């Protein structure tokens, strides 16, 4: 794991250098308020990216995360606006998110369809389902009994620190634990490293796949709940394009798209790079056209810094 450590180190150094440059350009950047702000904003992408890390470690990809986020967010909002109990609304949403993720996993493992194309299809299907469900309009969580409590999830604070930050940290700890300390974690790395060898070692690779897509579905739902809570409402369009940000965070964190290598700590760094980048470009008031160019170039540089050393 030594090599990996150095690699993580490198992207952190990149992150630090970048932060220093920005803080010179904008004195507001390194204030406590802004740091909390960045962390809170990052939390949504970070939570999705945590799930995406599991998927990518197995050598898969999940393009449907944004649609799942929108779908479960809409379900949660409609339950709450109907006055359903907070806990029930959340549990129902997460269950649906898990089922939808498991469906992805089943299509991929049982149907033997490449993850890219399978989740591309379900991305379209779930988005269509969301639009049908919401009739293309936002669903407000309304003034139901539990609405006020619900908004605390996204907008509340504890000890001066926004709730989504706690949520993000807890999720990262759990994910880190699963990946490093449990058998499932080993199987995920093994699957990404060599699927055939994993299967021959007596591991049920189909089950492992279903698990990772289920985790991705659950975490997309958690992100959906945060978004819904922050906006008091669920948007039928929510999450479009989020898959790319999540994948970028994972890859920037040094996890290989071919699977088997990388992990959660890298993803944290990757999500922070993207979060800070968006924040910095806004703070520096870079015009939106040039923002795109800048974002693309920074991602390229970050990956270049972080790429694996050639073998010889």
């Amino acid at each position, binding site marked *: 794991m030594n090599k990996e450590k150095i690699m993580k180190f490198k992207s952190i150094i990149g992150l630090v250098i970048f932060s220093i440059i920005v803080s010179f350009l904008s004195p507001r950047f390194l204030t406590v308020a802004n740091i909390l702000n960045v962390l809170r904003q990052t939390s949504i992408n970070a939570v999705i990216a945590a799930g995406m890390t599991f998927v990518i470690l197995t050598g898969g990809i999940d393009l449907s995360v944004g649609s799942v986020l929108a779908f479960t967010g809409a379900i949660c909002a409609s339950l709450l606006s109907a006055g359903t109990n907070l806990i029930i609304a959340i549990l129902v949403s997460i269950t649906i998110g898990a089922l939808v993720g498991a469906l992805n996993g089943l299509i991929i493992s049982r149907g033997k369809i490449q993850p890219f194309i399978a989740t591309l299809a379900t991305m379209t299907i779930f988005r269509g389902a969301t*639009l049908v469900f919401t009739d293309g309009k936002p669903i407000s969580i309304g003034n139901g009994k539990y609405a006020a409590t619900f908004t605390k999830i996204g907008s509340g604070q504890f000890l001066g620190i926004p709730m989504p930050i706690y949520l993000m940290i807890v999720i990262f700890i759990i994910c880190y634990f699963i990946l490093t300390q449990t058998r499932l974690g080993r199987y995920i790395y093994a699957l990404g490293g060599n699927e055939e060898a994993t299967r021959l070692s007596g591991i049920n690779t189909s089950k492992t796949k279903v698990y990772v897509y289920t985790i991705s579905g659950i975490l997309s739902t958690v992100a959906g709940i945060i978004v819904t809570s922050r906006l008091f409402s669920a948007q039928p369009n929510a999450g479009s394009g989020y898959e790319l940000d999540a994948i970028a965070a994972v890859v920037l964190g040094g996890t290989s798209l071919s699977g088997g290598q990388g992990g959660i700590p890298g993803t944290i760094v990757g999500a922070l790079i993207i979060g800070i980048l968006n*924040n910095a470009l806004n703070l520096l008031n870079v015009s939106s056209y040039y923002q795109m160019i800048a974002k693309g170039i920074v991602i390229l540089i970050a990956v270049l810094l972080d790429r694996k050393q050639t073998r010889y």
Partner: protein
Amino acid sequence: GQEESVGGDSTKKIGLVVSTLSNPFFVTLKEGAEAKAKELGYELIVLDSQDDPAKELSNVEDLVTKGVALILINPTDSDAVVNAIQTANNANIPVITLDRGANGGQVVSHIASDNIAGGKMAGEYIIEKLGASGNVVELEGIPGTSAARDRGNGFNKALESSQIKVVARQTADFDRTKGLTVMENILQAQSQIDAIFAHNDEMALGALQAIEGSGRNILIVGFDATEDAVKAVKEGKMAATVAQQPEKIGSLGVEVANKVINGEKVDSFVPVDLKLVVKE
């Protein structure tokens, strides 16, 4: 026999090509049209261009194939729609444009409210509220879309005459979540903000969350007058939103279409009033 029955049937069919159906504004427009079509006994075929002019062209071609009596187009772009309109023209199918105009082809009628005028209206309202000077933020729509362009143009034109300064101009892609995060970031960067103009209500509502979170007091003006935004205005959370009455655009579209199909004469431009929705 068959050809005739299809042809006979077609008098009852109208096509509606909408620039996008993942934006509540156009969903409302569509619903207005649907309600009116039902009332007048038409079958309305709604196709979604997903903001892609090439898809729009395909949609029109498919409608021509299907043999509709008239096509209502809500163009994705005024230039790019021209070929689509000519395609319909060539098949002798009359075209009515909704909300956005076309820079060519034969259009029997254009039903819209003016985005530039709407942007101007928002700008003038802010000048009225702030007085001669102040700092405003402009949240822009998806870069390159005509709505973002026109609303921005009108707004900035209005501000030219005043001392009001645009301290930040950032895109939030017409998206509520992005409106929230971008506004949060701008709030970090700018210590003095008096007002904000968002190119649509979605971004305005996102920005509203950010502003409420920051505890600051900023005048918010949105655009489109969606249900949520009107409610926010009523509650005093938003200052105003420019109402384009999409429902009316949709229903007027079908009404005019009905006249065209029945051979009645129609105006080449049917304006739909812009309204500034403010708290009474």
